């Protein structure tokens, strides 16, 4: 779950991290009201992706009237498919320097990494390529958290090549800021928690001018309020949505589904097996339409539900069902496939490959129902590609 800019800033502020004064507006009138209080503001589209500035999603305005007009314009926009449902009206900052401070999961170290850079305002990946000496990292012990001395070491290391910055002031200020940001990242189950740019003002204050916060999907249950708030921005009464509508529907159905570009529907059990099924379809010249993992011990009903889901995409010309029977039973899968075909009057080709528990029973049921089972996954892949090419 990626938080919007205003959510991230509200979280920063609550954690004691200074942010520019700002107000959320969901209507042009609210934007005008914000400008009346705040004066000159930037009116910023709230969308969960970058590049909104280039797309015209940010306007700096001097008066409440201008704020109202620009907010009306921006709230009518879609940016890269994401409808703008709110704008953040924010005062400007005087800038001495732009820094970067981020926390993100480092898989290889199995810890969060804290990253500080003396070059803020651009993507950290870009800095890593162009000026790696300006970046320093810290991997705090997860129980101890970042200690002030460790942060100072990190800051002094990154500032060694930026002599114009006042290292002394920064080292102490960044230490306290980092401890707050780390606590926030932990308490929000953040996969990424980033301040970029972290602005140093001429009077020596550090202010989070923009931020990114992404919450671990596995931990959503601990952050329902945020998710609810986010949902308000994600889909409105007008039904506009920036997310893939098939993936939205799959989430509603409780299915692990990824929408892809092709025309061969794919269903399997186990993430690795499904990925491998996609690979097989590609290998034989086909183009997968989705990734759908029914998981372990799938019931006939779940198989039916999954098949219905995959076929919602009108581009799908046929479906390849690849099941390894362990806890999942072949006869259950077959029953689900047959029920789905009959209830949904599916006429598109279905190829089912199953092996393992109750494989014989499953195959017998399928054959009886006129669906030809395949023995090997390779054979099945060839078959579905041939069938969907035929129907093209």
């Amino acid at each position, binding site marked *: 779950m990626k938080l919007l800019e205003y959510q991230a800033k509200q979280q920063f502020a609550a954690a004691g991290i200074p942010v520019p004064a700002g107000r959320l507006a969901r209507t042009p009138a609210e934007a005008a009201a914000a400008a009346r209080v705040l004066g000159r503001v930037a009116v910023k589209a709230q969308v969960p992706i970058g590049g909104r500035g280039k797309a015209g999603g940010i306007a700096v305005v001097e008066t409440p009237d201008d704020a109202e007009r620009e907010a009306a314009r921006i709230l009518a926009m879609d940016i890269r498919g994401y409808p703008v449902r709110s704008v953040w009206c924010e005062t400007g900052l005087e800038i001495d320097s732009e820094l970067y401070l981020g926390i993100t*999961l480092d*898989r*290889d170290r*199995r*810890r*969060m990494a804290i990253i500080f850079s003396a070059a803020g305002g651009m993507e950290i*990946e870009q800095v890593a390529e162009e000026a790696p000496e300006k970046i320093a990292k810290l991997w705090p*012990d*997860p*129980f101890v958290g970042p200690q002030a001395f460790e942060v100072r070491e990190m800051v002094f290391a990154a500032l060694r090549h930026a002599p114009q910055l006042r290292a002394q002031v920064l080292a102490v200020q960044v230490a306290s800021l980092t401890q707050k940001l780390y606590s926030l990242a*932990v308490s929000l*189950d953040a*996969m990424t928690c980033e301040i970029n740019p972290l602005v140093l003002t001429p009077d020596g204050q550090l202010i989070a001018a923009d931020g990114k916060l992404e919450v*671990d*999907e*596995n*931990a959503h*249950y*601990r952050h329902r309020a945020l998710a609810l708030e986010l949902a308000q921005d994600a889909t409105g009464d007008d039904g506009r949505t920036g997310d893939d509508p098939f993936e939205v529907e799959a989430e509603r159905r409780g299915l*692990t589904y*990824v929408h*892809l570009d092709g025309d061969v529907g794919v269903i*399997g*059990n*186990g*993430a*690795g*097996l*499904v*990925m*491998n099924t*996609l*690979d*097989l379809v*590609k*290998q034989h010249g086909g183009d*997968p339409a989705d*990734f759908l*993992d029914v998981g*372990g011990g799938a019931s006939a009903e779940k198989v039916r539900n999954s098949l219905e889901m995959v076929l919602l995409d009108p581009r799908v010309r046929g479906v390849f069902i690849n099941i*390894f*029977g*362990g*806890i999942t039973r072949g006869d259950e899968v077959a029953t689900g496939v047959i029920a789905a075909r009959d209830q949904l009057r599916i006429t598109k080709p279905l190829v089912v490959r199953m*092996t*393992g*528990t109750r494989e014989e029973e499953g195959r017998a049921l399928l054959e009886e129902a006129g669906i030809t089972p395949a023995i*090997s*996954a*390779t054979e099945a892949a060839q078959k579905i590609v041939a069938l969907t090419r035929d129907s093209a």
Partner: protein
Amino acid sequence: MSVLVDSKSRVLVQGITGREGAFHTEQMRAHGTNVVAGVSPGKGGQDANGVPIFDTVAEAVTATGADVSGIFVPPPFAADAIMESAACGIALTVCITEGIPVHDMIRARAFVERARTLLLGPNCPGLVTPGQCKVGIIPNHINIPGPVGIVGRSGTLTYEVIQGLGQAGMGQTTSVGIGGDPVLGLTFSDVLALFAADSQTRAVVMIGEIGGADEETGAEFIRSSGFDKPVVAFISGRTAPPGKRMGHAGAIISGNSGTAQSKIDALTAAGADIADTIEEVVRLVGERLGARAL
């Protein structure tokens, strides 16, 4: 011989009274596993089909000498269960639970490290030494004893390999599913090191997937440790698009890292055979075992 578990392993099940825990405990016992205890806080003193239940792991260990634990508790409580097991000196903790928050796992893994015990998983199928001991959810009927060591990230794909090898007459010393999460316990290199030291293991199959760099680290281990057994590797997700999480929390290509190609290149450079399909895995293992037998 085998790695990690064998007929002498005394297995504890945490969450034995849950639906999954109860079902798989019986499956494990059906495979000959010596399940000596279960833990379910507040149900101490009861039993589950004859397996005594305790309130805490500490009590279970004291009473039964359990040395391996299988965890089948829901995600919000799983990290705590892992730490409880490690704190009680359980030598190997196997966590089946899927969907544990990453920050929970970062802490749990650090805790396990500090306790100097081993963790397999989470979000993994567990492991099996055929006919001796199974901890986890790998289907019983596919496992037969033999000379191949298997280590895989994906569950069902690992089952496919076990079954494919079995149908071709090649059994396993131990099959180990390390799991698909970004933060996990034993990695490819850890398990490869165990197979290196196991005299009965004559060939190893590695089943990797996109995301992270554990396959590359495994390849580096093979290269640098003078690993002298044939390795056949299989990587799924070669056609997955970047930035999309493919089911497993760890199966995601971020930027230029975690691609199937980088893993295949690293493993090829380390001298592993790369198979494109399960059938090819089986064929290559057969060839290598045959070649070694000569």
